[in-house]
């Protein structure tokens, strides 16, 4: 990747340094903005130091809240993965099936979670179950759509080839359509992975996640905002961000495992 010589060594050093420099620059700008605010407004934007302090003081609370929310997110996400795959298989069978079911899928997607969630809590009870279902509802639709698209977009020639080999419908689905759909499947998964933590936090916010009395990140959001602890609130947001990162990284790692040998999305730039 790097040709010998001092020129590229310097550029590689610069390339690693640049994001760090940008990050430091942003923190400096953040401090500057804080200093520039009037006393009355100062409380609306905590300084980096206050946020760091909140992390230090409330570390254990944030950690268990992250675990609590993360559990709900993971369960809901996993449920969405399996059920969306099954539904996509079903929808891929014929255009008639798709025409019959897509409208209802759309309705499910359009209904705002904020409205469904309280009804859900009433039926299922508050806690991890509700959070899991809310997370599931948020992730489900993009996964179904992407996987279905992948299953029906198989190369026409490959389908013909399989027909020439007198493949059964099941062989066509599991030996051809499903592997060919894997890139689409993982696209849906990546979208779901960004949505799952959000869904769990929203679910948490509405349905609580007090398994063992410890709320999740959504619960903490209400606590810190009503108690006006802005540093802690920002810290909670940062933890939510990290949780999202973890999810997406996990999915990217999975997709690397499945695809890197054969799919162009992982090809090296100068092959």
């Amino acid at each position, binding site marked *: 990747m790097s040709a010998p010589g001092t020129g590229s060594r310097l550029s590689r050093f610069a390339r690693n340094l640049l994001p760090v420099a940008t990050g430091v620059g942003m923190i400096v700008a953040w401090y500057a903005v804080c200093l520039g605010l009037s006393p009355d407004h100062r409380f609306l934007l905590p300084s980096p130091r206050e946020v760091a302090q909140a992390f230090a003081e409330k570390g254990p609370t944030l950690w268990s809240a992250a675990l609590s929310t993360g559990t709900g997110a993971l369960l809901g996400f996993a449920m969405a993965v399996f059920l969306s795959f099954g539904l996509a298989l079903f929808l891929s069978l014929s255009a008639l099936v798709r025409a019959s079911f897509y409208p209802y899928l759309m309705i499910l997607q359009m209904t705002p979670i904020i409205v469904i969630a309280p009804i859900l809590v009433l039926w299922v009870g508050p806690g991890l179950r509700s959070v899991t279902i809310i997370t599931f509802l948020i992730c489900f639709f993009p996964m179904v759509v992407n996987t279905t698209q992948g299953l029906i977009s198989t*190369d026409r*020639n*490959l389908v*013909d*080839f*399989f*027909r*020439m*080999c*007198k*493949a059964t419908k099941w*062989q066509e689905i599991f*030996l*051809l359509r499903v*592997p*060919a759909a*894997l890139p689409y499947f993982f696209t849906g998964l990546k979208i779901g992975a960004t949505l799952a933590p959000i869904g769990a936090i929203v679910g948490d916010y509405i349905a609580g996640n007090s398994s063992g009395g410890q709320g999740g990140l959504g619960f903490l959001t209400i606590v810190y905002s009503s108690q006006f602890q802005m540093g802690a609130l920002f810290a909670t947001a940062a933890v939510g961000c990290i949780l999202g990162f973890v999810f997406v990284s996990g999915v990217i790692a999975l997709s690397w495992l499945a695809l890197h*040998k*054969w*799919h*162009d999305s992982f*090809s090296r730039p100068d092959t």
Partner: protein
Amino acid sequence: MREEQPPIVELKGVEKRYGDGPLVLDKVSFSAERGDFVTLIGPSGCGKSTILRLISGLNPVSAGSIVVDGMEPSRAVEKLAFVFQEPTLLPWLTVAQNVEVPMRLHRTEAATRTETARRSLELVRLADHMDYYPRQLSGGQKMRVSIARALSVSPRILLLDEPFGALDEMTRDHLNEELLAIRQQLAWTAFFVTHSVAEAVFLSNRILVFSANPGRLHGEIKVDFPYPRTEETRESEPYQRLVAEVSKVLRSVERLKA
């Protein structure tokens, strides 16, 4: 004197239209003997690829009949192999696994599959690439794998639809020679579609010329050069004269209106 064998493929009055669309093929009739190498040539839209698909059973005829080795095309599928314009390899399988796909679909057992795949790859001289993935291969190599895959089922009839169209001329010439070399060993009947007159003359013993709108069999040109044909054949004068002649016929066909 050889016993009179029935033609291996026979088309009688075949017509094809897609849905309510215009007539793509109009009363096409011809037959092929075992061992023939028949090339179909003609302007775009004359239905040559369609004929291959009809013979293979991928699409049904609208009128007329096709008999393949005494059967309807869809029943004769086991005796046929199709090489498409694109290599149509499954990108998530290795070269060897790709060659094994038809056998896997027929539920051949693993040991036989592996051995047969290896032999097929040896025929196309890619046995040392068995564990490569398609994206690591060049266009020509991918095509050879596709051919190896077609050969793995020991077909009686090989259908090839412009298989070398996307390759450069040198690769194409090499692959033509390879194809004929394999044919020496395996003696299948071939139906070949191409736009290249030079290729048609090099490969086949019969050239069927079609006109377009709708597709009709315009005429046939026999190619008498003996097999095996090599580079030297390409340089020979009779070959080049025949190429010129066929080209002329092709140009005249292109000028025909329906």
